[in-house]
């Protein structure tokens, strides 16, 4: 009896905790959104920080990332093609390639890539800023940390995931063409037909929205997790651990919801 009560209590505590986290994130997002609409935010300084964020999140790793996309898409295209041939379904191979790679796998991997590289860095940095009183110092100087530190990170994250996914998708389309038709322009018309069939307005809008949500998830969640850190240095790893766990859950949730919306 006592055990039951205790487990219900712990469950309740967990649920409350999750609600608190979700509320915190939503409130933070609301503030960021309001600031985004504020004209005063759009000054040269914010722009500079956004540029810096885009540089560190996307441009710095571009060559590594594109190489990795090249390998992944080449592998996936070959697997799909050979499987399709085995089952005599070659005519569906190009469509399957595009759907699997461009619409699902590459945005997902991009989000994971950015989450592992930039998300964890953001989480650590914000946690350290919180623990070291740097945020208090900024508050004392009346420099708004939202405009100066957080909003550019959110914008940079969204821009980075959207552009990197887009570039990866284009590369995968190219790889798919080369794998299916080789170095001839002969397959251009049927390939164009397949692309036209898949990418209707809804799919393109959904893809961009999904990538933007991924970008938001991999920056917003680490920032809020970092801000929650108690002012103790040993809590920084715990904060990063929690933040990354939430990022992972959020990415999977976004992917699952997008798949459900698309195919159910």
């Amino acid at each position, binding site marked *: 009896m006592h055990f039951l009560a205790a487990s219900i209590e712990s469950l309740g505590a967990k649920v409350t905790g999750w609600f608190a986290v979700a509320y915190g994130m939503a409130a933070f997002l609301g503030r960021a959104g309001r600031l985004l609409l504020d004209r*005063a935010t759009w*000054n*040269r*300084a914010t722009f*500079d920080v956004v540029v810096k964020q885009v540089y560190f999140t996307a441009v710095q790793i571009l060559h590594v990332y594109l190489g990795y996309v090249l390998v992944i898409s080449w592998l996936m295209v070959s697997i799909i093609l050979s499987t399709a041939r085995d089952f005599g379904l070659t005519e569906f191979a190009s469509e399957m390639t595009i759907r699997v790679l461009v619409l699902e796998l590459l945005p997902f991997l991009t989000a994971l890539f950015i989450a592992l590289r930039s998300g964890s860095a953001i989480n650590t*940095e914000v946690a*350290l*800023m919180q623990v*070291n*009183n*740097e945020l*208090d*110092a*900024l508050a*004392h*100087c*009346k*420099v*708004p940390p939202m*405009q*100066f530190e957080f909003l550019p990170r959110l914008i940079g994250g969204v821009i980075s995931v959207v552009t990197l996914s887009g570039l990866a998708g284009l590369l995968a389309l190219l790889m798919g063409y080369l794998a299916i038709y080789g170095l001839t322009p002969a397959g251009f018309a049927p390939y164009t037909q397949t692309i036209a069939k898949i990418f209707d307005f809804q799919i393109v809008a959904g893809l961009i929205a999904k990538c933007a949500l991924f970008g938001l998830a991999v920056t917003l969640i680490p920032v809020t997790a970092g801000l929650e850190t108690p002012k103790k240095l040993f809590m920084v790893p715990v904060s990063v651990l929690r933040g990354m766990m939430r990022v992972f859950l959020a990415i999977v949730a976004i992917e699952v919801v997008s798949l459900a919306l698309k195919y159910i």
Partner: protein
Amino acid sequence: MLLAAVAALDDDVARVSHELPLRANLSALDNIALIPLYQRHLGAAESARQAMDLLQRLGHAGIAPLRDPDMTPAQRFVTKLARALILKRPRLVIDRPGAMLYDVPYPVFIRRLASHADLAGTWEIYDFSWNQALYTQVHDTE
């Protein structure tokens, strides 16, 4: 000289304190330039110029590109001081300088800075009473 007073300081006071660190991933110049940039919405170049100007007047123009971990305690103190000065608040309080300037005879150091800076206004120093003796030669200045 009462610590409780430090906590009660309000918005028209600029504080220099070890509890208010610099932004660790920005250079000294950027740390100072933040204030005109975000409070007065000046351009990046103008903000940087003002910050550089201030550092020059304090006689430490050379520390402009250094980041927090690369600075000596004195350089860090100068940057914090410049950041407080550029806020242009009526009062400037240096909170327990001994905690920040542990490698220099700080009353002398602060006095020298004050003479360099050539700025209007009063600098108030809050410190532990047992450090009173250090200030006997050098009283609170200007």
